[in-house]
């Protein structure tokens, strides 16, 4: 790094007021400028913030989208999920490696390209998909690859004519929440007509429950947060949407951003908060500029800023925070750590975020869809909302359908719909199994297709991956096990080590080398990881294994070795090095 580079880094640190809590943005900006964050840039950042280099490295090294070494100027990240693979992602990867003359994970010698795999990028309905320097390519085929590489070589990732660089609208079926005007002044006016406590009562009466997956009653969360003492209160919107197979928050932010910001503003009013934060996953960086324009337009219309809607004393604004490739940052306390510029390691509870969240102040973290629902409730009333869904699960759910299905996309359905009804709706009645709520959810077999999508039955964050009879349920479970290895934050031993051991156990089973004793040991280990892990990631990471063991025992039986024990490594494998050194096979009893 030259002196000029050092000056640039210093300027970036100054741009963020040398605020340590903005470390993520600072690293982001340095990475954007130089393509990586070199050791001397780390030192310049540390000096500028008055912290230690080891602290900068702690944050920097945590996120998949930050690099300490130079990588290719064009950074191609292909999404690798069971869905992308069934749609041909491996062929696309092979076409890229052939066209570039490098293997996956490598950088071309001229420094022009890096091609690698990444976790789900929120495009499950238009896979195979990839990110190229933040731009999204969809519906890729091997035949597209030479044209893409040529365009990238010629004019880089910013090329307006980059093939496949379009995202099809994913909204297939809108329901009551996604119909009607896009939000704005009316919703804010209706909200301001009530005192803040009454707004919370309305949300409570609507029986709104969190759409991020856990289903916590939103009204209760807001009430707890409002009454928690603190110098400031914060409203955080969770747009990390990292659960593979989920893409509804992308649709909401792409097509209904005002509705989401309305919901956040409603929360700001109800909680007495002046600050809103929207945590946008790094994979959705392509939305950044447009969301900023929407925020600006809202400020211009007095829907954000001071005296919102003309109400003296109601000041509220929203800042966007971009993530950098870490599924765990969707966990609410990890999200808060990340918002504070740290590694995304969850916190132990209590205290809960509603008592001590962002900057140790009371914070309500809610999902994108939850805010959209809250806005509609203020518009149409609680009774309108409870008119849809079941007693326990009021309203509708945005279900993201992908996989072996002719009409993938987002469907807004009332809670209470059975899996069978959903499969008919999306024209996939032949499904052999459905992964409900992503890898952390469950693998549902046809015998359970009569179950209902609702918090009291099949609870879901929205991800609905459909698999036909030609798919192997254990292969899918292994790929999910791999996902959790890549995404464990590493803080606690059961999840950090357990996810790797579980993956190895599944590999042995899928390879047909496991005995019944191995399957039992894997099951026991899985249960220990569930019971002992610190946060929801570790507590649900074994689900793909445990739910397939429960629902598809025959798939396991078919792979078993007879006999009580099979070694983890074969004798030949263990002796391979010695054998090659001695240039002959070991002498055995039979020989």
């Amino acid at each position: 790094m030259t002196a000029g580079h050092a000056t640039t880094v210093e300027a970036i640190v100054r741009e963020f007021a040398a605020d340590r809590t903005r470390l993520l943005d600072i690293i982001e900006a340095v990475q954007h400028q130089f393509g990586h964050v070199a050791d001397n840039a780390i030192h310049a950042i540390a000096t500028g913030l008055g912290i230690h280099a080891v602290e900068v490295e702690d944050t920097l090294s945590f996120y998949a989208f930050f690099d300490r070494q130079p990588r290719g100027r064009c950074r191609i990240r292909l999404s690798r999920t069971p869905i992308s693979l069934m749609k041909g992602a491996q062929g696309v990867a092979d076409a890229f490696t052939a066209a570039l003359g490098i293997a996956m994970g490598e950088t071309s010698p001229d420094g022009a390209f890096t091609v690698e795999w990444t976790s789900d990028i929120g495009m499950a309905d238009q896979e195979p998909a990839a990110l190229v320097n933040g731009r999204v390519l969809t519906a890729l085929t091997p035949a597209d690859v030479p044209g893409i590489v040529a365009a990238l070589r010629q004019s880089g990732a910013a090329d307006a004519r980059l093939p496949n660089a379009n995202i099809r609208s994913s909204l297939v079926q809108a329901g009551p929440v996604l119909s009607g005007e896009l939000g704005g002044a009316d919703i804010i006016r209706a909200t301001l007509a009530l005192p803040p406590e009454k707004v919370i009562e309305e949300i409570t009466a609507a029986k709104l429950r969190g759409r991020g997956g856990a289903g916590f009653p939103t009204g209760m969360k807001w009430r707890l947060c409002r009454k928690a003492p603190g110098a400031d209160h914060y409203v955080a919107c969770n747009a990390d949407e990292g659960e593979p197979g989920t893409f509804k928050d992308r649709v909401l932010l792409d097509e209904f951003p005002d509705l989401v910001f309305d919901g956040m503003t409603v929360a700001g009013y109800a909680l007495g908060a002046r600050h809103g934060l929207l945590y946008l996953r790094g994979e959705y960086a392509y939305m950044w500029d447009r969301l900023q324009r929407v925020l600006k337009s809202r400020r211009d219309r007095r829907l954000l800023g001071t005296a919102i809607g003309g109400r003296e004393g109601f000041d509220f604004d929203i800042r966007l925070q971009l993530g950098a490739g870490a599924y765990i940052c969707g966990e609410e306390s990890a999200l808060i750590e990340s918002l504070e510029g740290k590694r995304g390691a969850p916190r132990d509870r209590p205290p809960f975020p509603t008592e001590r969240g962002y900057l140790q102040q009371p914070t309500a973290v809610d999902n994108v869809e939850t805010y959209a629902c809250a806005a509609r409730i203020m518009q149409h009333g609680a009774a309108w909302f409870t008119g849809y869904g079941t007693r326990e699960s009021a309203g509708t759910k945005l279900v993201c359908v992908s996989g072996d299905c002719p009409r993938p996309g987002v469907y807004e359905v009332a809670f209470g719909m059975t899996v069978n009804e959903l499969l008919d709706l999306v024209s996939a009645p032949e499904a052999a199994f459905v992964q409900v709520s992503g890898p952390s959810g469950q693998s549902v077999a046809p015998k359970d297709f009569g179950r209902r999508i609702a918090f009291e039955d099949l609870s879901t964050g929205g991800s609905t991956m459909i698999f036909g009879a030609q798919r192997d349920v254990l292969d899918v479970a292994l790929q999910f096990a791999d996902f959790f290895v890549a995404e464990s934050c590493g803080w606690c031993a059961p999840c950090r080590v357990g996810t790797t051991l579980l993956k190895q156990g599944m590999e042995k089973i899928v390879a047909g080398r496991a005995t019944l004793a191995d399957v039992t040991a894997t099951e026991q280990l899985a249960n220990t990881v569930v019971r002992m892990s610190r946060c929801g990631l570790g507590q649900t990471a074994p689900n793909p294994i445990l739910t397939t063991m429960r629902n598809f025992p025959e798939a396991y039986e078919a792979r078993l070795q007879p006999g009580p024990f099979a070694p983890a490594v074969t004798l030949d494998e263990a002796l391979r090095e010695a054998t090659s050194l001695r240039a002959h096979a070991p002498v055995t009893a039979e020989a």
Partner: protein
Amino acid sequence: MAASPIRFSIDGIAVEATEGQSVIEACDAAGIYIPRLCYHPDLEPSGTCRVCTCKINGRNGAACVTPASHGMIVENETPQLTDDRRTLIEMLFVEGNHPCPYCVASGDCELQALGYRLGMVAPRLPYQWPKHTIDATHPDIYLDHERCILCARCIVASRMQDGKTIFGFEGRGIAMRLNVDATGGLGATQMAAIDKAARVCPVACIVIKNDSYRVPNGERRFDIAPIGSDIEAKRKQAAS
């Protein structure tokens, strides 16, 4: 106004706690041992190992990071928890390389001692055989990453007690490592052998040179009495 006393029960035994105490602190004071690994009484807890997990009001929670509260019902020594804790210790054994018979910490190592106390015979889990290098750049201390169990004690001690911030984590998941605040290794930092951070490592990752065999094998802390005996002795004393 005097704060009302906090009373809770652990395995049926009544325990009193003071405001702000964690479950593990209150139980330590009462002479009840909850197995633990990353927790150190002089340091802020990090909750990394989860060995101290108890069933608290019916749900699993780590005793070192759970505040004691009135009326809590805690289960500690159940067969299930002992089994899960033993599995955690096994996981840490196979994650690193721990050659107890010839390790400098043998008899003084909390990981080894917990293995004994929890009845670990031999790890049933597959060894991961990670490759790590030894950092011998410091004149008085070496860092043997093969043994690090990522407990975070040294990180907390260095930041909060020594005021130095010499240690941090690097990477995530199974690739997570302990990192030091200098590209040149520990020798290029302000680390000193008298630092708190040099004296809290539960295993033989941070080792003070030329000091390891002052107490011979066979006469060390856990050669003499199982880990936790000191805490349990308090209760026995009180009872007699």
